[in-house]
């Protein structure tokens, strides 16, 4: 595998990559409306459609960060609007605990953000994405695990770990 130099990620034209989990009923349709209303928003998000914000297992978020994405956005229907009645209420509880835990573990809350965007809120989706992108840009690239990989290499016996 080609080893990319560290400097590449730190260069001026670095742009964050953000994975957005959007609920199929509200936020995905909201993002669609943003596009069809010709509202522009930063192209840094990669959208992943999920059936419900309740489908987003905290593990998905952890794995996304571990995989090197610079930020995560999870968006679903407003409380009370869930297509499955209570998916977003249940999700909210998990996310409340997860976001506090991530903060305690040392991951800046700006890297993992949550929002409620309905199908009619095309403008809100654009605003949310802009805010998330601005937050992640201020933080810089996700080098949480990368920095440590180089430390491990220096120790020798663990060098096979990447």
């Amino acid at each position: 595998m080609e080893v990319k130099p560290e400097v590449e990620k730190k260069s001026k034209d670095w742009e964050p990559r953000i994975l957005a989990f959007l609920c199929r009923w509200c936020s995905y349709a909201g993002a669609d409306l943003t596009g069809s209303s010709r509202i522009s928003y930063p192209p840094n998000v990669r959208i992943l459609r999920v059936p419900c914000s309740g489908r987003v297992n905290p593990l998905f978020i952890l794995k996304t960060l571990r995989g090197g994405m610079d930020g995560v956005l999870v968006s679903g229907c407003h409380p009370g609007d869930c297509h499955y009645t209570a998916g977003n209420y249940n999700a909210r509880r998990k996310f409340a605990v997860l976001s506090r835990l991530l903060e305690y573990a040392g991951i800046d809350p700006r890297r993992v953000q949550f929002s409620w965007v309905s199908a009619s809120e095309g403008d809100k989706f654009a605003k949310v994405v802009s805010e998330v992108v601005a937050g992640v840009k201020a933080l810089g690239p996700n080098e949480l695990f990368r920095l440590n990989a180089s430390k491990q290499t220096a120790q020798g016996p663990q060098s096979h770990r990447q």
Partner: protein
Amino acid sequence: MPENTEKELIAIVSRLFDEGRIHHFLGYGKGTVKFKTTPLIARNREDLQGLRVEDSCATNLALYLKEIKGPVGLLVKGCDSRSLVTLIKEGQVKREDLYVVGLPCPGQIDPAKVAQAVGFESEELEEITLRGSEVAVRVGGQEKALPKTLALLDKCLNCQYPKPLIFDCLLPGEYAAPIPQATLTDDELRKKPISEKWTFWAEQFNRCIRCYACRNVCPACFCPRCIVEENMPQWVSPLPTMGDNFVFHLMRLMHVAGTCTSCGECQRVCPMGIPLMKLNEKMTDDLRELFEFVAGVDPDKPFPFRTYRQEDADNFIK
């Protein structure tokens, strides 16, 4: 621990075997290491002679209910009884299958901590005895008195449930009063800036060798197939890289949120000495603060992630 406690226990359990009320009894036996006990699974009356009740009965015996099915008796401390409440609530064991014997627990001795406090190796210690609010240690022919804070397991210092919450009978002895909440120790790390938190945890996760001892010893981890062993799709790489260790530990916390009773077994068995309880305590504090949920106390209160309220905290969501 008074001499007669052991005899009393053996008498109670013998009677249970005679009456056919239990097929197994989970207790403590003499450990292979000085001052430590090891779990003992008695299958008949003869096995009971190995039963010991000492001042370091640290293991949470509720763990073995994962594998031992059918009518079973077990010895529990206050903290372990919370795991039982959780397991019953989760449908992992039936209350009517259990015969719970409560153990008076003044706090359990941590030999490694004592050894460190007196500046000796733990093999060199001759005797450790609990005397009221102090712990007397005999080492090198001398006797030293240690305050409880330097001799007991960390979890015992903040014990809120010294008396079992569910039991069928209690062994005679003194059941200590709960330690007031006000004396809870602060976790300094929580006040530190976020970059320092990451530096701290990155180093801890870097040391993890992924032996899964923390998972295996956890009474709240009872999935027949753990997600770390899942390989289609593979969620977490089995290689102990810092990144995958991070995913593993945080994921495990989310899985035991609501069932973790802070029994401290994960940290106790960790061969790398990773302070896992810091994470668990943060999580249990959050559950208490956000949802007024305390694990293993109220058998009728639903688990925090299986219920919701419309007015749950929403301020972190845009």
